[in-house]
């Protein structure tokens, strides 16, 4: 009775999980193991630029990064001012740009999910900022915010909103704002794309059920759309935050962390330390700290959004 076509088919079927998961795991493992080991190892080392030797220094890199120094050595408990200010900058930068782009992206995705003629064109149009190379976008925004030739000042003046020039990139707070605007501009399309895909999974019949249950638009969003969108929100926020915590291109191109250190964030700090200062040890320590922070954030996102609607 069996319609068994070939033992091979059966073998393949039985090996489905190993065959589908294996290559990916191998790929990732093959590439990740060495760099990660190296990263952790380096975080305990210090390269002396004079002797050019890597010295084992235990946790000193971490201590010096995080805590203030007094008389040469780091004092546990007192945070270093630069750690505090850069962390604050990062929180502001990531917090604002992620939340603004998320809300904006969600709104646009909901609009684009509607049955609109020509929505294909809208979708393409909306994605474009993300297609431009980040370096290009960063330069473009630097150019837009430039105080004399910048289009923003130009347009605001033309519209009569301001009379003089606003030196966007010379003022710490304004520079941060400019960075956030650029970041939102570049990455909102990503949110839109992910959420738009997620919206396809909401079973239409549940909207009917909720409507009949008397649910208002808002309530329908929370009780039908949102639970089905959760997995996509998780993806969107996680990737967005991971990207932003380490986003270097825009910052480096637009402000290089300046003026002063007003827009220095973890990513630029890490790059500066590891690549520019050529202090692989301190950079690695910073990388490990970033890894831990990212992990914590992702874990908490998982807690909030990590449940599929069909899961028991």
């Amino acid at each position, binding site marked *: 009775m069996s319609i068994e076509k070939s033992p091979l088919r059966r073998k393949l079927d039985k090996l489905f999980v190993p065959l589908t998961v294996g290559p990916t795991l191998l790929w990732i493992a093959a590439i990740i193991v060495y760099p990660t080991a190296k990263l952790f190892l380096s975080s305990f080392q210090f390269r002396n630029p*004079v002797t*050019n030797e890597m010295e084992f220094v235990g946790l000193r890199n971490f201590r010096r990064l995080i805590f203030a120094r007094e008389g040469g050595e780091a004092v546990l408990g007192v945070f270093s001012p630069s750690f505090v200010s850069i962390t604050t900058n990062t929180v502001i930068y990531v917090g604002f740009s992620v939340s603004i782009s998320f809300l904006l992206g969600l709104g646009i995705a909901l609009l684009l999910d509607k049955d609109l003629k020509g929505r294909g064109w809208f979708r393409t149009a909306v994605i474009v900022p993300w297609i431009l190379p980040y370096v290009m976008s960063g330069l473009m925004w630097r150019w837009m915010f430039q*105080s*004399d030739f910048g289009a923003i000042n130009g347009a605001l003046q033309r519209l009569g909103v301001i009379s*003089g*020039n606003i030196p966007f990139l010379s003022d710490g707070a304004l520079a941060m704002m400019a960075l956030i605007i650029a970041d939102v501009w570049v990455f909102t399309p990503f949110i839109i794309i992910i959420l738009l895909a997620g919206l396809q999974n909401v079973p239409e019949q549940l909207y009917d059920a909720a409507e009949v249950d008397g649910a208002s638009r808002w309530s329908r969003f929370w009780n039908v759309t949102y639970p089905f969108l959760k997995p996509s929100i998780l993806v969107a926020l996680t990737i967005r935050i991971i990207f932003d915590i380490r986003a270097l291109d825009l910052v480096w191109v637009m402000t290089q962390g300046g003026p002063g250190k007003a827009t220095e964030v973890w990513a630029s700090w890490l790059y500066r330390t590891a690549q520019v*200062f050529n202090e692989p040890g301190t950079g690695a320590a910073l990388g490990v700290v970033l890894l831990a922070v990212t992990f914590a954030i992702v874990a908490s996102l998982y807690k909030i959004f990590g449940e599929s609607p069909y899961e028991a």
Partner: protein
Amino acid sequence: SGGSDSSTEDGSGGDSSDGESSDGATTGTGSETMADEIVFYNAGSLEFDPGTEANIERFEEETGISVEVNEVPWSNLKTSLTTIWRNQDSTVDAFNGPTWWLADFVSSDWLEPIGLGSDHMSKFPDSLNDLVQFDGQTYMAPEFGKWGSYLYDQQYLNDQGFDAPPDTWDEVLSQGEQLSQGDKSGFAFTWAGKSVFSFKQFLYQAGGQLFNDGYEPVFVEEGKEVLEFFNGLRERGIMPDGMSSLGEGGVGDNFIAGQYATVESWTPLGARAIDEWDENRIGSAKPPKGPESRATFQDTNGISVSAFSERKDAAKEFARFMTTRESSKNNMLVEGNPAVVPEVYEDDEVQSEYPSWLLEDMRFNLENAKSETYMAQPQVDDYLNEQLTPALLGNKDPEKALNDAYSNIERLYQDIGLL
């Protein structure tokens, strides 16, 4: 220069691409015979370095060694090189970079002494020779110069009733207010993106320097005078509004756009102004004299050879060739890069190409420009930048800023065992 930047590719056809993958095998390290190809890392596109490009073409023609030019974005060249050399990789044979990178590279043993004797090196000014030599070995052959220069808008100054620009810091301050009319600012300064260069330039004018011979930072006293000068500029409204740091990038553009009466900037801005403006609108002068001198900062570029290169001989030959008097002159003729060989300024061809007042200022600057090479240069610069920017913007007390920078740098040097 109409030449295509990919001429190296065109010229050597299939060879260059084949050579890339097989060079390890064909080129012995002993090299009784010189390699027929080298890889040269250039900062930025050669399009912006037509002088270098022209000299490379000459080099290839005359030596038969083909040069594969890898263009790396300016701001990233040092990072790239560091990454490559940290892995002791032989990808790079020679590169083109500034002198101030040398201290770190040399102490890391990443550079090969290029072995150029005094017959080659003596034509450069002593100050320059000092910058490229460590423990008696030469690690870089100076190729073309960049240093501070003082430019002004002749037309505007005339309109305002000035024959000549301010000649001292005091005059900058006293005449600046009158020069700052409407949209115009009286005095601006920049080494775009490099705050510390600007600072050093004024520091040298004030008679200071960053470090003494014992690696001790010694910039605080004179630094205060510099910041006081800036303070004066800001208070009198002479300094432009949008200035965000000593490395403000827009200054050059704004000068070209006619926003500034006078500007103390680096040399290429002069060439740009000549291109964009009427011949007689641009004016040049020796930098305003500070408390001590008219010295400017020197950001000379040269060519070095990688310690990991497998084609060192060819690379050294390249370094030599690119820095002969002939090449220096050629570079200046083609691109306008200030020659680092004083004699070149007397050359007829050069004289006929450039106005004599400009040549005179250039040569003056070449001979009076100063620089320092010091360990952990990026960190040191970062510590300075970090403190100077708020001080410049009036957000931090200058003395406190300088002292903070001082103690940071001192601690850094203690950490690495220099102090």
